[in-house]
């Protein structure tokens, strides 16, 4: 089967700076493929090349079997795109703007536009420039999904959306996959990638550092924990935590009323719970793992140095 996206040795240079250093990526049709990485990693550059908004310096790109440089408008009609920096400032209504985009794609399905807008809670009658950032983002989502494209390229599609709408968006992504559409999305939100992506690529400094499943990445993720214990009990609690293999960066902040112990955990949750059960705990916060940070630490040189020095500190 022809991959929906097939990129090999893709390089993009702007003058002296290189945004992409030979990226290889193949995405099978009907999959949801997530890409994560810090700002400037090359996510947006890669997506813009797929849409022929910018042109590669070298390498080959095939989108739905065609070269975006040669295929022209016919290929882009089969793609739905939400740009990372979505800008909309027109005076016209959301309905008029969406109808305009639909006409550019050679199809105007008003009923589908209305249904999508209703689903996301978007008022189509208001001028687009008067909409909040979140509502503009909804306009961006509707225009990408409206023509039921074979491929969806979504750059940070949920930025500015409230959690309920994010959930609705994720449902739309799943439905798109079930209908055989391919989804290529970038996100900073781990739960989002986790809930919908079949595969994840990690992009750093213009290179793919890993392609993996969400489960494997998640196992490597560090969770920030913060435990509030009675005053003066912090040091003893911290000492117990340091005995756990999974705990890093244990620190104590003492105050007159109570001590706050913070640490970062890599799995090992049962042992952590056992420590908690033996102690008096006033409050507990466990943050969702920051997948992006964890992955970058996992593959980056700096992070392994940091955890090595941490181990030394514990053993000494």
């Amino acid at each position, binding site marked *: 089967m022809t991959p929906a996206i097939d990129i090999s040795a893709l390089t993009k240079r702007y003058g002296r700076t290189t945004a992409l250093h030979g990226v290889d990526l193949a995405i099978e049709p009907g999959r949801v493929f997530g890409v994560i990485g810090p700002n400037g990693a090359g996510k947006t550059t890669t997506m813009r090349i797929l849409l022929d908004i910018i042109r590669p310096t070298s390498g080959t790109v095939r989108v739905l079997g065609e070269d975006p440089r040669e295929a*022209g408008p016919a290929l882009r009609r089969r793609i739905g795109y939400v740009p990372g920096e979505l800008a909309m400032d*027109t*005076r016209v209504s959301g309905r008029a703007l969406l109808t305009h985009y639909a006409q550019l794609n050679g199809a105007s399905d008003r009923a589908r536009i209305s249904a999508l807008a209703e689903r996301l809670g978007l008022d189509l009658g208001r001028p687009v420039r008067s909409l909040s950032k979140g509502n503009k983002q909804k306009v961006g989502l509707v225009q990408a999904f409206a023509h039921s494209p074979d491929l969806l390229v979504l750059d940070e599609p949920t930025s500015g959306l409230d959690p309920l709408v994010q959930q609705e968006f994720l449902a739309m992504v799943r439905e798109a996959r079930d209908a055989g559409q391919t989804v290529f999305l970038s996100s900073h939100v781990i739960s989002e990638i986790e809930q919908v992506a079949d595969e994840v690529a990690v992009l750093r400094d213009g290179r793919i550092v890993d392609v993996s499943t969400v489960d494997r990445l998640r196992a490597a993720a560090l969770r920030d924990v913060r435990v509030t214990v009675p005053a003066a009990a912090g040091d003893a609690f911290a000492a117990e935590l340091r005995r756990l293999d999974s705990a890093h960066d244990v620190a104590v902040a003492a105050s007159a009323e109570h001590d706050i112990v913070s640490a970062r955990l890599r799995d090992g949750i049962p042992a952590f719970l056992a420590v908690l059960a033996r102690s008096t705990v006033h409050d507990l916060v466990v943050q969702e793992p920051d997948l992006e940070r964890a992955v970058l630490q996992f593959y980056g040189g700096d992070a392994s140095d940091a955890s090595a020095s941490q181990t030394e500190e514990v053993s000494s």
Partner: protein
Amino acid sequence: MSALPLFRRALADSWRGLVGWMLGLAAVVGMYLPLYPSIGGNPEFIAIIESLPPELVTALSYDQITTGSGYTLGTVHGLIGFVLVTIAAVGWGASAIAGDEERGTLELTLAHGVSRHQLVLERLAAIVVKLVALTAWVTLLVAVLNGPSELDISTEGILAGGVALLGTGLVTATIGLLAGALTGRRMIAIGAGAGIAVLGYALNALGNQNADLEWLHAISPYHWAYGTNPLESGFDASVGLLYAVAIIASAVAVLAFRRRDVGV
């Protein structure tokens, strides 16, 4: 599928501005032309003109101001009308690509089923339609005021004046469009469009001063339009240069915009 979606969108987005320019032009033309009987034919005013430095008089084309066609050229086509049409053309030419790109809205349009050359051509067509509307409006106003203001301009002169004014607007707009297509920078596009208009005016004024500088007329778009007063003598072949430059600038804009990255 509806035809020319970008063209229609461009017109729908800017008809308010067009109406504003038409009202402004109506106010200016309606103010200047009715004054002709009390200025252009007035011996005292002619005495004032003759007392002015001749360089100033020729620079402003006031040496022809005692005829209705000379007065109309010196006030409307060659001065206030020229300035207003130029400003409108600069704005439209610069916003068609560069302005849209700087606002970040061009990226999403290009991500849909349109080609680069289609985008340039449809937006150029919208600019042409608006400039035709503006200059046709000026031409109509002059025609209406021709009798009451005792201008005594021939019908061919009125039409030729409108065609010359349209030509200057097209040159300005397409040079701005071209600069925007090449660079994507709005200020550069504005500078290029306004620059060609101001430069053309300045070269013409300098060329008027003496015979040694007359060669400057050959490279002045303003002179191509008004070197021989179209309101007086009708159509002149040199106006064709304006349209040739506009067509070449448009073609280069299409080619340039097809080649480059957008929004970086």
